C-alpha cells in the first residue's frame, strides 16, 4: 500500500467531507434499492421488499458510521472533535481558563526564558562548518599549590580536581601543527582586547584578535567581501593586512563595497584591510564580538607589550596563545589527545625548566575539549548560575502545575453530572480520559504560547541584567527550534502532570450517584479532597524550598554589602586611555603623567590618580617578590599582588595610610625605587619585624632587593570583593614596566559623570588621537562586581514570591472549595450550638495542618536540595553555609504567616455561614 495514496486519500476525505458523505449516502441507498428490486423480482410486494432489504443491511446509519470510523482521517476527526469540545468547555469557564493559562504561562515562560539563555550560552554551536569536529587545546596540571607560575596570559581555572588553562606557548603550537597528528587543521589566537583603531581620520576602539592564517580554513569560513589573509601574509616582514567582521564593516565603514585595500591604523601600525568575515561570525568566544583579526606575525608591531626581551615565537616559557583545531575525520578526541601529548610534553618541559631551573615540578599535560560552542569561557562563568535558576524555575512550574491540577479536580467534581451522562450514553473510560487530557493539553499549549511570548521578552531582560555595562554580552537570543522543542515538550509534560489525576478520577467516577444527585456537589459523601490536599501540601513544601533559596541569596547579598572594602567608592570618576603602540617610552609615561597632572587642576576635582588596574574590576596582576629575611617554602609563597599606581592613589581611593606617605609626582623613573605595602603583606612577610624602610625586590628570578618600603596602608580589596585582601604591593606608575593602557580615578566634589565633558576636552588637547574608554564610576564598578549576587537575590526573591502566591492561591482555592461544600454541615453544627469561633477554629486548624505538613516535608526537601546543589551554589553564597538555619527558619516563618492569611479568608466565610440559609439551600 502506498503511504502517499493513503495520505492524499485521507486528506481528500477530510477536506471534502461533504462530498464523501453524499457519495456514501448514495451508495448505501442504491444498495438498498437494488436489494429491494431483486426481492420484488422474487415476488415480494414493494413494501415487504424494502423492509426485508433494510432488515438485511441492519441500520444504514451504523453502516455509514463503520465506514466513517475507518482510516487515519477518522482519528483526526475525533481529535478535532475533542479539541473543539475542549475549546467550548474552556470558553464557558473564562475565569478558570484565565487563571490556569496565566499560571502555566508564568511557569513555562520562566523555564523557556532560562532555557533560551542556557541554549545560547551552552548549546548553540559556533556558526561554522561542522562545529562538532572543533577542539580547544588546554593545558592541565595537578591542583596543588606547588604548581609553579609560568608567564601566562589568558584564562585558567580549576576543573575536575586539576588546574586547566587555555594559553599555550608558540613553539608547542608550531610543533603540534607540523606533526600533523590528530587534527587536520589548527590555528592560534591571541586576544588583544580593545585596541586603538584610526580610520578615516577618527580614532576608536575595536575588539581585536591576532590569529594565524589557519583560522579561516579550520573554521571553513568564506569571505563576504575581498579575501582573507594567507600563510604568506602571516609571516614576519610581510605587508601588514587584516580582516574585519561583517558587523564592524557595516557599523564603522557603512558597508563600503570597496573596503578591500583600505588602510587603517591598528594599534599604531598601518594595516590594509584584505576582506570581511561572513555575516554572523563574531569570533570563537560566544558573547564577544571581535571586530578585527590580524595575522599573529604582526605581534611585535601591534602588541609589543607582551614581552620585549624575547621573541614570543621562540620562547617556550611564555604561554599566550589560544589554540583550536579540527579533528581529522574518524579520529576521536581521546586519540588525538594521546597523539598530540607526545609532541606537547617536551616543549612544556623545556618551558617549565627554563622558568624554574633545577626544580622538580609536574609537567603540564595537554587535553582537548570540545570546541563546538567555541572557547567556553561564557559557559564556565554562567553555567552554574543558569543551572541553579533552571532548577528554581522548574520548581515554580511544578507549583503552577499543582495549582492547575487542583482547579481541574475541583471542576471535575462539579462536572460529575456531565461525566455521568456521557458515560451512560456509552462513552468509554478511554474516551473520557482522552477528552480530559485534550482539555489539559489545550490549556498547556495556551499557557505555553503565552509563556513563549513572555520568555522572548524575559530572556532579553535577563541578558541585560547579567551583561556588564563595561563589557556587554553579545548573545543572539532567539526562539530557535531547540528552544521551541523544549517548551513544546514542557507543555506536553505539564499537561500530563496536571491533567492525569483529574482525568483518572473522571474515568473512574461511579455514574449512578452522579446522576441521582440533583445539584452538582450537593453532598460530601465519597468526595474527599484527598488529591487536592496532597497537592496543597506539596505546593507549600516546594514554596519553602524556593523561599529558602531566596533567603540564602538575599543574605549573601546583605553580607557582601556590609563587606569592609577598605576604600571609598563614592564620587570617583573612572575612565581609561588606550594609546596606540607607536607611543614608546618615555613618551608613554609622560603622556600618562601629563593627563594625571592636568586632571588635578580641573575645577571640581578633589584629587586624581591613575592605576593600571581598576579595583574590583578587570583582574589583577601577580608578581614574585623577594623579601630578605623571609623563609621561602614553595614557589607560590613568593607570589603577591602588584598594583602600579599613580600619585595620590591612597588619598583618591581613600585607603587609610597607616604609616609613611602616599606616592607623589616626584616618584619618577629616575628617583629611588619605592613601594607601599598593605597590612596583609606586612603580616605575611614581616611577622614581628618593622617593614618601614626595608628593601625588597620585585620580579621573577632572584631580583635585587632595591626598592624601599615607604608606607603601609590598610587592607583594601583588589580583584574581588569576596576574597580577603591579598598581600599587595603598590608601585609608583613611573617605576613600573611599560603599561599599554591606563585607568584614571578622579575624586570629585559633585556628580562624577558631570565632569566628563571637561575631561574629554582636556585629553583631546593633550593628544586627540588617544581615545577614552570605559567611562563610569567606582561605585558602579562595585555594583557590577556584585551583579551576579544581586541578580540572584532579585530573581530568587521573585521566584520565591511567585511560588508563595501560587501556593496561597492553591491553599485558598482548596479551602474555599471545602468550605463551600461543607456549608450544610457547618450549618448543622451551628444549628446544634457551635459558635462562630468554633467554626473559625475548625477551618484554621485544618489550614494549619496543611501548612505544617508542607513545612515538615519542605524543610528536609530544602536542605536536601541545597545539599544536592551545593556544588553549584557554594560559590554563589558568601558568609553563610548552604545549610543556613536562620535562612530556613525565616523562610518557614514567612511561609506560615502568609499561608495562614490565605487560609483565614475561607475560615471567616465559614464562620459567617447562616445556619438558616445553609439548611434551606438543599
Amino acid at each position, binding site marked *: 500500500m502506498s503511504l502517499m495514496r493513503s495520505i492524499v*486519500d485521507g486528506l481528500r476525505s477530510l477536506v471534502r467531507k461533504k462530498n464523501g458523505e453524499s457519495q*456514501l449516502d448514495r*451508495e*448505501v441507498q*442504491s*444498495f438498498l434499492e*437494488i436489494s429491494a428490486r*431483486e426481492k420484488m423480482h422474487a415476488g415480494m410486494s414493494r413494501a415487504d421488499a424494502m423492509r426485508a432489504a433494510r432488515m438485511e443491511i441492519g441500520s444504514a446509519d451504523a453502516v455509514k458510521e*463503520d465506514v466513517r470510523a475507518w482510516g487515519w482521517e477518522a482519528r483526526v476527526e475525533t481529535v478535532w472533535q475533542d479539541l473543539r469540545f475542549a475549546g467550548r468547555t474552556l470558553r464557558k469557564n473564562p475565569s478558570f481558563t484565565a487563571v490556569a493559562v496565566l499560571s502555566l504561562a508564568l511557569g513555562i515562560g520562566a523555564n523557556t526564558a532560562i532555557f533560551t539563555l542556557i541554549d545560547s550560552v551552552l548549546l548553540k554551536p559556533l556558526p561554522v562548518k561542522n562545529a562538532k569536529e572543533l577542539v580547544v587545546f588546554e593545558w592541565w596540571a595537578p591542583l596543588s599549590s606547588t604548581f609553579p607560575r609560568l608567564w601566562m596570559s589568558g584564562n585558567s581555572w580549576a576543573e575536575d580536581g586539576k588546574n586547566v588553562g587555555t594559553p599555550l606557548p608558540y613553539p608547542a603550537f608550531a610543533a603540534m601543527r607540523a606533526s600533523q597528528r590528530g587534527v587536520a587543521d589548527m590555528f592560534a589566537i591571541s586576544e588583544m582586547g580593545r585596541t586603538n583603531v584610526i580610520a578615516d581620520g577618527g580614532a576608536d576602539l575595536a575588539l581585536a584578535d591576532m590569529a594565524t592564517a589557519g583560522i579561516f580554513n579550520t573554521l571553513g569560513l568564506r569571505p563576504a567581501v575581498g579575501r582573507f589573509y594567507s600563510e604568506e601574509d602571516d609571516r614576519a616582514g610581510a605587508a601588514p593586512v587584516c580582516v574585519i567582521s561583517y558587523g564592524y564593516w557595516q557599523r564603522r565603514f557603512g558597508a563600503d563595497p570597496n573596503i578591500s585595500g583600505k588602510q587603517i591604523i591598528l594599534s599604531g601600525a598601518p594595516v590594509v584591510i584584505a576582506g570581511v568575515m561572513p555575516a554572523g561570525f563574531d569570533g570563537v568566544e560566544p558573547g564577544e564580538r571581535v571586530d578585527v583579526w590580524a595575522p599573529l606575525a604582526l605581534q611585535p608591531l601591534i602588541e609589543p607589550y607582551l614581552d620585549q626581551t624575547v621573541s614570543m615565537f621562540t620562547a617556550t616559557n611564555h604561554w599566550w596563545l589560544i589554540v583550536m583545531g579540527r579533528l581529522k575525520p574518524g579520529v576521536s578526541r581521546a586519540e588525538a589527545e594521546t597523539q598530540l601529548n607526545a609532541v606537547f610534553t617536551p616543549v612544556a618541559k623545556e618551558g617549565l625548566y627554563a622558568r624554574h631551573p633545577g626544580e622538580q615540578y609536574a609537567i603540564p599535560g595537554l587535553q582537548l575539549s570540545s570546541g563546538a560552542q567555541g572557547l567556553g569561557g561564557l559557559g564556565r562563568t554562567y553555567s552554574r548560575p543558569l543551572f541553579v535558576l533552571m532548577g528554581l524555575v522548574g520548581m515554580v512550574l511544578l507549583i503552577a502545575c499543582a495549582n492547575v491540577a487542583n482547579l481541574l479536580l475541583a471542576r471535575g467534581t462539579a462536572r460529575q453530572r456531565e461525566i455521568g451522562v456521557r458515560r451512560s450514553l456509552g462513552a468509554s473510560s478511554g474516551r473520557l480520559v482522552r477528552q480530559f487530557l485534550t482539555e489539559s493539553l489545550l490549556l498547556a499549549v495556551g499557557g505555553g504560547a503565552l509563556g513563549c511570548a513572555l520568555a522572548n521578552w524575559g530572556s532579553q531582560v535577563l541578558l541585560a541584567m547579567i551583561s556588564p555595562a563595561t563589557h556587554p554580552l553579545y548573545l543572539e537570543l532567539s526562539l530557535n527550534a531547540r528552544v521551541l522543542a523544549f517548551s513544546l515538550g514542557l507543555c506536553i509534560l505539564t499537561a500530563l502532570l496536571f491533567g492525569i489525576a483529574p482525568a483518572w478520577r473522571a474515568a473512574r467516577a461511579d455514574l449512578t450517584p452522579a446522576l441521582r444527585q440533583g445539584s452538582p456537589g450537593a453532598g460530601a459523601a465519597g468526595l474527599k479532597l484527598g488529591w487536592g490536599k496532597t497537592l496543597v501540601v506539596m505546593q507549600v513544601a516546594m514554596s519553602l524550598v524556593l523561599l529558602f533559596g531566596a533567603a540564602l541569596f538575599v543574605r549573601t547579598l546583605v553580607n557582601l554589602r556590609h563587606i569592609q572594602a577598605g576604600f571609598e567608592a563614592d564620587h570617583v570618576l573612572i575612565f581609561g586611555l588606550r594609546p596606540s603602540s607607536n607611543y614608546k617610552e618615555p613618551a608613554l609615561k609622560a603622556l600618562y603623567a601629563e593627563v594625571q597632572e592636568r586632571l588635578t587642576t580641573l575645577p571640581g576635582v578633589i584629587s586624581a590618580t591613575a592605576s593600571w588596574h581598576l579595583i574590583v574590576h578587570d583582574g589583577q596582576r601577580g608578581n614574585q617578590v623577594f623579601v630578605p629575611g623571609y623563609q621561602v617554602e614553595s614557589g607560590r609563597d613568593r607570589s603577591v599582588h602588584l598594583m602600579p599606581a599613580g600619585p595620590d592613589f591612597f588619598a583618591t581611593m581613600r585607603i587609610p595610610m597607616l604609616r609613611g606617605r602616599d606616592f607623589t609626582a616626584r616618584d619618577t623613573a629616575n628617583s629611588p625605587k619605592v613601594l607601599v605595602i598593605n597590612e596583609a603583606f606586612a603580616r605575611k612577610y614581616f611577622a614581628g619585624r618593622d617593614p618601614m624602610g626595608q628593601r625588597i625586590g620585585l620580579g621573577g628570578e632572584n631580583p635585587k632587593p632595591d626598592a624601599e618600603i615607604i608606607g603601609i596602608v590598610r587592607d583594601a580589596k583588589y580583584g574581588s570583593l569576596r576574597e580577603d585582601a591579598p598581600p599587595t604591593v603598590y608601585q609608583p606608575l613611573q617605576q613600573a614596566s611599560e603599561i599599554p593602557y591606563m585607568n584614571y580615578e578622579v575624586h570629585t566634589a559633585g556628580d562624577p559623570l558631570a565632569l566628563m565633558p571637561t575631561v574629554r576636552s582636556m585629553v583631546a588637547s593633550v593628544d586627540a588621537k588617544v581615545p577614552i574608554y570605559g567611562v563610569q564610576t567606582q561605585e558602579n564598578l562595585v555594583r557590577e562586581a556584585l551583579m551576579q549576587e544581586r541578580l540572584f537575590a532579585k530573581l530568587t526573591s521573585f521566584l520565591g514570591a511567585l511560588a508563595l502566591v501560587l501556593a496561597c492561591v492553591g491553599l485558598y482555592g482548596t479551602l474555599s472549595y471545602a468550605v463551600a461544600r461543607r456549608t450544610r454541615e457547618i450549618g448543622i453544627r451551628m444549628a446544634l450550638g457551635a459558635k462562630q469561633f468554633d467554626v473559625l477554629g475548625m477551618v484554621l486548624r485544618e489550614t494549619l495542618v496543611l501548612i505544617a505538613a508542607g513545612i515538615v516535608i519542605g524543610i528536609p526537601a530544602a536542605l536536601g536540595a541545597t545539599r544536592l546543589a551545593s556544588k553549584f551554589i557554594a560559590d554563589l553564597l558568601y558568609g553563610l553555609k548552604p545549610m543556613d538555619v536562620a535562612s530556613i527558619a525565616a523562610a518557614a516563618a514567612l511561609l506560615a504567616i502568609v499561608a495562614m492569611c490565605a487560609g483565614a479568608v475561607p475560615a471567616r466565610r465559614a464562620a459567617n455561614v447562616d445556619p438558616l440559609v445553609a439548611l434551606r439551600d438543599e
Partner: protein
Amino acid sequence: MGEKTSGDVVQGTLDMLILKTLALEPMHGYGIAVRIEQMSRNVFRVNAGSLFVAFKRLQREGLIKSEWQASENNRQAKYYSLTARGRKQLEREAESWQRQAAAIAEILKA
C-alpha cells in the same frame, strides 16, 4: 463456520473474496454481497458494514477502483472493478490461501 448455520466471513478473507468476485466482472456492492453468498453456497453471509469498509480499504490500497454506472435496470450504482495491482494481489493471496488450507486439511486428516 458451522455445518448448517451460515457464518460471517472469516476475518481477513473478505478482501480476497471481494477481489475474486471482481475478477470475473465489475460489480456493485449488493451484487458482490450476493455473489459471495451464492459462491459459498450460503455458508458466508456478508455484513454490509464490513463490506463498505472493505471497499474503502481496498480502494485506499489501490487494489480496486470505482465508478458510477447505470445498473441493469437503469439505476445508478457504484461499480467496483479490479486494478492491475488488485489482480496480482488476488493471485498472491489465493495461492497462499490454498497452501494454508491444504496444510490445515492435512493436519486435520492426520
